[in-house]
């Protein structure tokens, strides 16, 4: 059993988002980068499956050298080895093409990742990889169990969940509560330093989109405070001024 977990290297969820170079580049100044929160759920479940099934667990990121600390953290959490595709992740198609190429060479049984990255929120890569490999893709997966070659999952649907079954190989786009996030312990951190981290060059340059400019939303006006003893006023304002009732 071979599991591949694909992780993104994204700004911490508390980051203030700003741009530089005439709004053409993300401003990394003062920003801490983390494993994408949804990918962190995928990784946590993969570590549990590894222990339960005696599987091997490889973690993959498409990114430049600066993402290596994020990959080392994933190794400290429990991945056996890591692959970094040495390229800026230009768009979803580019990233999915790299993952599919590596998956074709290594025949993973299960490919896991977050349902979406928290920077571009596309939620596309899992489906693209599934289609490129000609295998099922399921997302967003909130529960995943393996029995033999059968995968039992729960998937979030609007207002509830759906229970599904599929056979391996499979791509799963994951979210909570598939597993509790794992925090690396000292032993994990020490062993992560010596675990293999392979750097490979991208296989293709194919992209479908390119960001030409970034914008921030317009600044919010000041809040209009209403006295707690006069809630009728709020209802009037919502009806007549904001016109939302």
């Amino acid at each position, binding site marked *: 059993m071979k599991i591949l977990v694909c992780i993104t290297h994204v700004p911490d*969820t*508390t980051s203030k*988002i700003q*741009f530089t170079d005439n709004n053409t580049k993300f401003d990394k100044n003062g920003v801490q980068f983390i494993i994408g*929160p*949804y990918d962190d759920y995928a990784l946590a479940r993969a570590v549990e499956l590894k222990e339960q099934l005696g599987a091997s667990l490889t973690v993959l990121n498409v990114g430049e050298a600066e993402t290596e600390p994020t990959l080392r953290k994933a190794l400290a959490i429990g991945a056996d080895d890591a692959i970094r595709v040495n390229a800026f992740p230009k768009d*979803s*198609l580019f990233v*999915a093409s790299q993952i599919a190429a590596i998956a074709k060479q290594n025949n993973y049984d299960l490919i896991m990742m977050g*349902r979406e990255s*928290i920077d571009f929120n*596309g*939620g*596309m890569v*899992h*489906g*693209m990889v*599934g*289609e490129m490999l000609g295998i*099922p*893709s*399921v997302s967003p997966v*909130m529960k995943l169990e393996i029995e033999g070659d059968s995968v039992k999952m729960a*998937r979030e649907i*609007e*207002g*509830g*969940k*759906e*229970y*599904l*079954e*599929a*056979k391996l190989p499979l791509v799963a786009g994951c*979210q*909570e*509560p598939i597993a509790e996030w794992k925090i690396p312990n000292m032993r994990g951190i020490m062993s992560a330093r010596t675990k293999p981290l392979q750097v490979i060059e991208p296989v293709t340059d194919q992209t*479908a*989109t*390119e960001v*030409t*400019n*970034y*914008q921030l*939303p317009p600044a*919010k*006006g000041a*809040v*209009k*405070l*209403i006295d*707690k003893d006069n*809630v*009728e006023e*709020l*209802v009037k304002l*919502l009806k007549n001024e*904001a016109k*939302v*009732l």
Partner: protein
Amino acid sequence: MSVLVYIEHADGSVKKTSLEAVSYAKALSDKLGAGEVIAVALGSIAQEELAKAGHAGAAKVMHVNDEKLNAGIIQAHAEAVAQVYRKVGAGTLVLAKSSLGDAVAARLAVKLDAALVSNVVELPETGSGYKVKRSIYTGKAFAETSVNKDHKILAVKKNAVDLKTDGAAAAVETVALDINADNFATKIISTDKATGEVLLPEADIVVSGGRGMKGPENWGLIEDLAKELGAATGCSKPVSDIGWRPHHEHVGQTGVKVAPTLYIAVGISGAIQHLAGVNSSKCIVVINKDAEAPFFKAADYGIVGDAFEVLPKLTEAVKALK
């Protein structure tokens, strides 16, 4: 080349977000002269539901009336839409951003060799190239994205366009497709759905509670207000983490992202991760007894007061409005 719109439905009712996608497609076709708008609907759906696509702007609905497609099996839906896309000679596919929509669109992008842009908030600009504005960083920014493929898939964010309901009736054409059994390799065993409630991702009004509600036993106050407003209920992450409310009500960066017309936050301080999940709301009301709660900075209207006093009064005031 025509514009095809993938329509989602919940137990036969066409989703409002899908109708917004139809209206977006109609505006796109009017702006770019992109040909007629054709909707594709999969599974068992009544004629009067399909007619709504016409009112929203579709000239025609291709109905694949195959009950195997009632369930949202991602591969099967992607294959069915791809077949219809080729059959009608479409150049653009429009759909609503959703859990199923994302999953289907991603496979379609590869099948159709199309550029996929998600979270689209405006019609494309074609002055120089083909550029689409999309929401990124969970609503904290926008990216103008140029597209470099002939075929395009645009996943439209909820509330990004006005839903039109004054269009003509659409001609419905029933289509039979041949979908390979491999596309049904994922089996849906059962579904566990909240019934009789307004679905959170689709809701026009959302009332959310946070730790300020003190315990799950007090949620009746949130539900009473939601009921009067015809709203969905949501909660902050700590509330779902401690199990007061189910996970599918968790609104925020790693939970459900909502874009209602009105978002009412009660007893939620407004952590940046929660704000990211609601910042596309048209109007935000915050009720919190802490006047320093950061959420007030993001709100349009606010009441500094105890939720247990304010909520019953607010519910009564809404009732009186009717």
